[in-house]
């Protein structure tokens, strides 16, 4: 797959970086002149993925790193990869169930993956216990046209 442009960034899994991460991805996506709604969808999907890493990946260790890669692919497709090297997800299928959360005490709604799925065109989750989780999303920008 030809990558037309790419941005890579690594930052510590701290909650104050949630805002920074979604703003960065949206700034990069802006070169495709997305609609307000498309940009809001991307912003929300990225926020969910990064928040998952911050809330879950390093819960029993010091906050490690989150690596974000954003690519511009042919056909106005934005590719986003968000990876951590945290505890991993033991049961991905269960984690992706709407309203399932392993952190209900922190008032996590259990809707992160549901939002990512709904606001992008494709979502892939790879995870290995003890090795981390990588979330990949793609969204074709249609500029308001179908």
């Amino acid at each position, binding site marked *: 797959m030809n990558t037309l442009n790419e941005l890579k960034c690594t930052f510590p899994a701290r909650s104050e970086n949630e*805002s920074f991460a979604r703003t960065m991805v949206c700034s990069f996506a802006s070169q495709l002149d997305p609609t307000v*709604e498309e940009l809001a969808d991307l912003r929300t999907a990225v926020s969910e993925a990064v928040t998952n890493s911050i809330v879950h990946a390093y819960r029993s260790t010091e906050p490690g790193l989150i690596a974000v890669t954003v690519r511009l692919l042919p056909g106005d497709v934005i590719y986003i990869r968000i990876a951590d090297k945290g505890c991993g997800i033991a049961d991905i299928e269960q984690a992706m169930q709407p309203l399932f959360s392993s952190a209900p005490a922190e008032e996590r709604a259990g809707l992160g993956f549901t939002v990512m799925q709904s606001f992008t065109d494709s979502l892939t989750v790879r995870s290995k216990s003890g090795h981390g989780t990588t979330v990949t999303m793609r969204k074709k920008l249609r500029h308001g046209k179908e």
Partner: protein
Amino acid sequence: MVELKEEPRKLTAMLSGELDHHHAKEIREAIDFAVREQLPKTLILDFGHVTFMDSSGIGLIMGRSRLLEETGGTLEIHNPPQQIRKVLRLSGADRLAVIRDTVNGKEPEHEYAQ
């Protein structure tokens, strides 16, 4: 950010800025403290000045809905902007609370179902 407005039996939480996981805890604590003090009949979460919300905001709504059940009050969501309405619909949180637009004279309840 949250600013609380107390009236007899009514508590309004004027939310503003970005409602994400980073900001949700502080907002939640401020609201819960006031609810437990005041035991309002109605708690209004006003999203009119919220510029961004992810599922952390849904967690906030679900948690306040449970708290109000416990204290015997009802929850209302006022003035959610477009992006927030989309997240509300997706989560079904629009079934947990009455949603109203109170600005621009559009007082009666809005039907947000697609």
